[in-house]
């Protein structure tokens, strides 16, 4: 059963949903941004520690569906150690991967590739991008913010 969904729900996604990485609060984080998808009720708070333009640490709190939880969990892993502009570039590749048929540098997206299946499920794209829109807001604004995907 559910064989048709292997593209969307890969084992890695279940794994991150069960055991989300970096699921914690960073005390005195340099950026703390809340993301909200009112359609699903998904809600997350993203914490970033940025030192001289480099994301030294990233974590999150909140709850959402498996796609959104796996997406934010994977994101916090992959952006650590990247500069702000590298993280923005990654967002743009990721966004392209799940919304268009265009050429995507799969090497650049690395393990985010497990989310490529979302493209076949337009209703779920927002689940996968909530984390990244929240990151985008965090990188563009200093301090505390709140964003909504609707």
């Amino acid at each position, binding site marked *: *059963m*559910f064989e*048709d*969904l292997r593209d*969307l*729900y890969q084992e890695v996604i*279940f794994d991150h*949903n069960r055991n989300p990485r970096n699921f914690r609060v960073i005390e005195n984080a340099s950026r703390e941004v809340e993301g909200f998808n*009112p*359609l*699903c*009720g*998904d*809600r997350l708070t993203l914490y970033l520690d940025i030192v001289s333009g480099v994301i030294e640490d990233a974590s999150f709190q909140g*709850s*959402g*569906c*498996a*796609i*959104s939880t796996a997406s934010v969990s994977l994101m916090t892993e992959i952006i650590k150690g990247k500069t702000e502009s590298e993280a923005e570039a990654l967002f743009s590749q990721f966004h392209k991967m799940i919304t268009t048929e265009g050429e995507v540098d799969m090497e650049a997206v690395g393990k985010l590739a497990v989310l490529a299946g979302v493209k076949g*499920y337009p*209703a*779920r794209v927002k*689940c996968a991008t909530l984390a990244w829109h929240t990151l985008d807001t965090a990188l563009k604004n200093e301090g505390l913010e709140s964003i909504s995907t609707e």
Partner: protein
Amino acid sequence: MSALDVLSIRNDFPVLAQQIRGKPLIYLDNAASSQKPNSVIDAISNNYRFDYANIHRGVHTLSQRSTDCFEGAREKVRAFLNAESIKEIIFVRGATEGINLIAQSYGRSTIGQDDEIIITMMEHHANIVPWQMLCQQTGARLRVVPMTERGELILDDYKSLFNSKTRLVSIAHMSNALGTVNPVAEMIKTAHRYNIPVVLDGAQSAPHMTTDVRALDCDFYVFSGHKLYGPAGIGVLYGKQALLEAMPPYQGGGDMIRKVSFQETEYNDLPYKFEAGTPAIADVIGLGAAIDYVTGIGLDNIAAYEDSLLCYATEQVNQIAGLRVIGEAAHKGAILSFVLDGIHPHDIGTLLDSVGIAIRAGHHCAMPVMDFYQVPATARASFAMYNTEQEVDILVSTLKELIKVFR
């Protein structure tokens, strides 16, 4: 289990005879919108094919035919609601527009600064937001009837909300998020003791039970065609004639006037005073066909069948470990809202869809209900007269499989 010939009913709904992702469609999203029988589809297409023209004032044959069918549908609605007169039946786009009409016409002409409007905690956004807008315009306030954990309104609290500032009560006959059927007859009696008119939102209840606006003695009642196996974009506002007579028009335009000059306009009689512009002619006729269809089967028969189906489904899902039913009122319509431990409703929705089962996952336009139960969303299976125990069995066994996949 029932007096219904479900197989023959299913054969009347062409959309049901299809496969989704290789599996027979199991359509359990009826509270959002129900499917359409051939008779409704034919009534609409036959109007366009053979009889269509603009209604009222036409001197040619097609206009007369369309007018007769259109006004014939109004009489069907009157009988369906047991209203006294066709003057009390106003065609609108749906329950939402009906409530907005009441808020902007009745509300703005009778409700002012510091007045109070009573609604309940389990309302659909359509029965919250129009009143909030009215409150912003007038300085009135919303008062909200609380509910219990089971999803039943607390009637003592309702009674204690009435005071000299109370001007209007607006309540759902049946909750779309919980399935609760509210004790509206008793609530209307309470309001009338204070001479306060009551609006009933019948969007959910109309397809599932007999409605008698005179027995209920509600002052206004709204419902949508698309949940009653009829077309989308058409609905009905019922209002007591005396109230409607006293209300100013909602929109201006053609058909709602008797005489227009640049100095002044004389408005048309009821119900036309509230029907500006060319209406959704074919859709009104389609709604008439939908009413013929459900009354042919019998609303009481439909209610009895759906009730037994809901009981069966509730029994079955209660055996699933980690499943919690949201909304356990003693009197419920055929709606089963639930959450599963550790599995988000949107994942449930996507996984069920992959085997042909259509449910709804989300806040069901009732965010205050989600806040009350402290859940971001629920999964909701909502049944209609064409659903079967066999479909419930497939839903339940699929849910069990789904839980295994997530463990």
